[in-house]
């Protein structure tokens, strides 16, 4: 159409083809996402509730710190993702670094920093791989929901939006898996949970900008 018409005829044809639209409702989207995540959390706890109770009974402070760390990352980056859906939102890179940095400092302060006993014991490769794969799998509902909402929005910084979605979804997957995971060492968390978040972020950075539907 663009090759054959000038602006006025484009305006006319856009006007002609125009139909009423349902306005985007960010609050409703947040509620839907909250509902999906609540159902996933409830379902997971129903299945692994005994393991979760054991982990929290054994080491309450660190288990709680790990949960708060991933929940904080999830909430922080999901909020950044939702903000970035609005085209008028300015760049949020510094806020993202701030949120990420703060949560990492929190994890360093409250998780197990003891590196004695050898790398294999700390990093536990077989458990770690299971953690990595499971965390990525658990991140999918949030990843898909946020992708869907992004398509209906108007993000003018698609790369940043994709990164926020990736970190938020990866952190959520880590949060869910972490509820029954007994490993509290900062090295384990950084490698396997961090790896899962890095993977979802990489996938989001590669895939999502193509889905922005401009």
């Amino acid at each position, binding site marked *: 159409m*663009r090759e054959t018409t*000038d*602006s*006025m005829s*484009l*305006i*006319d044809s*856009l*006007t*002609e083809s*125009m*139909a*009423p*639209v*349902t*306005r*985007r409702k960010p609050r409703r989207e947040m509620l839907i996402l909250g509902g999906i995540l609540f159902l996933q959390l409830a379902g997971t706890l129903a299945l692994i509730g005994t393991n979760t109770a054991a982990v929290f009974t054994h080491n309450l402070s660190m288990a709680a710190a790990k949960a708060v760390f991933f929940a904080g990352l999830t909430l922080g980056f999901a909020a950044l993702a939702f903000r970035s*859906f*609005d*085209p*008028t939102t*300015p*760049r949020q890179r510094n806020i993202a670094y701030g949120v990420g940095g703060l949560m990492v400092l929190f994890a360093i302060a409250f998780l197990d920093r003891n590196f004695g006993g050898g790398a294999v014991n700390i990093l536990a490769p077989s458990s770690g791989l299971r953690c990595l794969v499971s965390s990525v799998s658990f991140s999918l509902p949030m990843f898909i929901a946020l992708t869907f909402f992004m398509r*209906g*929005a*108007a993000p*003018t*910084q698609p790369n940043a939006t994709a990164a926020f979605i990736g970190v938020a979804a990866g952190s959520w997957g880590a949060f869910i898996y972490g509820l029954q995971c007994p490993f509290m060492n900062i090295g384990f968390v950084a490698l396997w949970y961090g790896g899962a978040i890095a993977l979802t972020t990489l996938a989001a950075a590669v895939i999502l900008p193509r889905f922005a*539907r*401009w």
Partner: protein
Amino acid sequence: MTGTPHLRVIDGKKPSSRPVTDLSHLGPLMVKAQEGDKRAYNEVLTACDAWLRVFLARRVAPESVEDIAQEALMALHRKRHTYDPEKPFAPWFVAIARYKWLDRLRKHYRAEEVEYEDQASVSGHESAVMSKIVLERLLAHIPDNQAQAIRLAKIDGYALDEIAQMTGQSLSSVKVRIHRGMKRMMKKLEEAHA
């Protein structure tokens, strides 16, 4: 449409008395457009088209104005459901227009880089989608050697091998300087319009 016969005087101003750059009156019209009012929508698009021509005239080469203006109008059309009536219209539309403009620049320079890889010449005498004024302004923000290579290629229209001879650099070094310079300029542009 019934009951709204004078859309153009919705806040008491006639269109002729309103500067083209003033988009402040379009919010209520856009709300009507979202509800299916074609006349209001036509007025929104016409006003945005006029604004785009002023906005783009200072930023892109004249031959690209039409294309980018049309892309921005199409984007407005596709994303019209994302306009929030509680917020002013102008920042919403300006953000979309800037995005389409920068997106076009990004795509153009990406394509140009591929071209650099294939041949030792520059396709156009000047950048097809960036006006000389903007180009000159951005050149002040990058290192001199990169600015010189870009100026020779984009403004003076020399081929890359000619620039290599003139500056005493290898062909690949000229390509790297132009690439890095353009990358810095795009970053600067994006930061300025974030």
